[in-house]
């Protein structure tokens, strides 16, 4: 298919339709309004249903119902709206429902602002709702990658019977880039039949399907938690996604960044490498599971790490856990909706290279 020029939000919507998702329930919030806008136009054209719910709470529980009935379904929102959905997210994880949730992150906390941010890393990867659960979390750094990850997200959700969250800073949602939708795309994982879904019981053929997260018997609930934990361990083994840049070469500093910030850092790193400075980049694509071992290996080769985020340091904690507490890890973050510029990244990288030199 020919390339189209699309905003991240529009491309995410079209990717869902290409993944045969015919249902969208959501509520408007800046900077992701182009997703519901797009779905409200496109879904009727493909025989789907768009509902603007009365709130994010309602939308997320509509997701629960539709996924429970075995349908592919997704919602999108931005940070405060995602916070409102957290009760249903926990219920969907507990009931093992395959749904896709998109968070086009804006600056917080509270109402915050409407400019880009990556400050919902903790909320997405450590569980914004209650109980022991994990979401598969994917973070695109281009509009094309948002398309690809979005299509994979539906397959992963169905494969693991688990909610998948795609998080992008507001910039990825709002910027336009050329994108391509593959015609012959195959599912990225096997898709088991949804024999557990509530599709109507005819009194025979199979037991009643009950979608539920209530287990009053402590032993049953513990067994359920153990089953979920095993599933998360399987995700951790099989679903790590990461992009590495220049890690095959020699380098004195490893930069770790994701989303649009990784592209800013890469622009700076390419320029610095042209000047003979030895720097490499690891860009986590899956945030849960986190590419712990890749970062540990790449960091050890450099001896020093710089983490750059649009937050006060959230992924930073996972990087620290990957490299151990005595490893030198520096951090640069911007908040409020301010972006890291390539010049700023360059300056921070140069400072770390100088610090490494001085510590020798």
């Amino acid at each position, binding site marked *: 298919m020919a*390339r*189209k020029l699309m905003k991240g939000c529009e491309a995410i919507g079209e990717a869902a339709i290409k993944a045969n998702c015919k249902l969208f329930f959501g509520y408007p919030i800046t900077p992701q309004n182009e997703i519901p806008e797009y779905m409200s136009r496109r879904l009727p054209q493909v025989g789907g249903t768009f509902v603007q719910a009365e709130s994010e709470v309602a939308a997320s529980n509509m997701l629960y119902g539709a996924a429970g009935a075995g349908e592919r379904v997704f919602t999108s929102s931005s940070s405060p709206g995602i916070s409102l959905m957290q009760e249903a997210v926990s219920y969907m994880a507990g009931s093992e429902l395959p749904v896709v949730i998109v968070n086009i992150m804006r600056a917080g906390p509270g109402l915050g602002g409407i400019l880009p941010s990556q400050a919902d890393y903790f909320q997405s990867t450590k569980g914004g709702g209650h109980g022991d659960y994990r979401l598969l979390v994917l973070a695109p750094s281009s509009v094309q990658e948002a398309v690809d990850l979005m299509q994979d997200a539906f397959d992963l959700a169905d494969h693991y019977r688990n909610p998948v969250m795609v998080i992008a800073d507001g910039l990825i949602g709002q*910027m336009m880039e050329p994108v391509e939708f593959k015609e012959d795309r195959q599912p990225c994982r096997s898709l088991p039949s949804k024999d557990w879904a509530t599709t109507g019981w005819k009194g025979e053929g199979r037991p009643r399907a009950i979608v539920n997260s209530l287990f009053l018997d402590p032993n049953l609930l513990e067994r359920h938690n153990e089953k979920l934990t095993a599933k998360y361990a399987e995700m951790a083994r099989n679903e790590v996604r990461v992009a590495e*840049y220049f890690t095959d070469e020699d380098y004195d500093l490893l930069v770790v960044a994701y989303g649009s910030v990784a592209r800013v850092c890469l622009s700076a790193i390419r320029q610095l490498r042209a000047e003979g400075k030895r720097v490499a980049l690891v860009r986590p694509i899956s945030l849960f599971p986190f590419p712990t071992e890749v970062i540990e290996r790449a960091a050890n080769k450099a001896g020093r790490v710089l983490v750059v985020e649009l937050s006060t340091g959230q992924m930073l904690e996972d990087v620290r856990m990957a490299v151990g507490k005595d490893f030198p890890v520096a951090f640069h973050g911007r908040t409020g909706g301010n972006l890291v510029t390539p010049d700023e990244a360059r300056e921070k990288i140069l400072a770390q290279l100088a610090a490494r030199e001085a510590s020798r």
Partner: protein
Amino acid sequence: MFTRRISILVGHFGSGKSEIAVNYSMRLARDGLPVSLIDLDVIKPYFRSRSARDQLAAAGVELVAPTGDSFYADLPIMLPRVRGLCRQHDRRVVMDVGGDDAGARVIGSLDDVLDPDEIEVAAVLNFNRPFTADPDQAVAMIRGIEGNARMRVTGVIANTHLMQFTKPETVRSGYENACECARRLSVKVLAVCVPSVLEGEFSGDEFESKLFPISRVIRTTFAADTDSAGGDSGVPEQPPAPGFAPAVEGRYGVRKVGPLFVPAAMPDEEG
């Protein structure tokens, strides 16, 4: 490309209105004309003409946009200065209107102060955008805009491009589509926009309409993703069979990626 005092740019969101508004008003200022650029985009929060605040100031263009906190908002704010400029006959005015019929509603409120003989209303068309992929869709979009704007579109601007993937053929086929729209609307194609790096690919008289070279001002600080299309997105290998202990590389499906982006060398659009 415009001959009347007030140029109003409408169209699908993402069609290029802001970039054209910024480039055009900076060109007027370079020609020594007093010019005001009114950012009437109440539709989207980022990548508006107000993002070019510093470049516009340096070029001597007056930017009319909300100030203070409201600068960053996507609220329907109509500054008193807008109505004033409609009546101030010694300045050129460029209005950058928000996308689609929804964005056009804001200029409908100006029909009591806009003199029909002073205005040109140009629909910006990029046929690589969703919802304006062909002349049928584009004309339908323009009709919706006209209804909400309470004014007729008086010309179209051919702005078909694919950012870093724009080829001369991209521009040419977009021009053909724009001509078809113009014919159906009984208006002219006012200009054909081309990325300034491709300007040399076209002879001056190739199109009946003027060439308008565009240098992108409103953009991200990092470079285009030149390698994005068709690439894999780091899908790990299929999960191994139970009991099989794979090597670290396979287990983690480590994606080796070469240089993805060309180096950035462009102004920061922070602000």
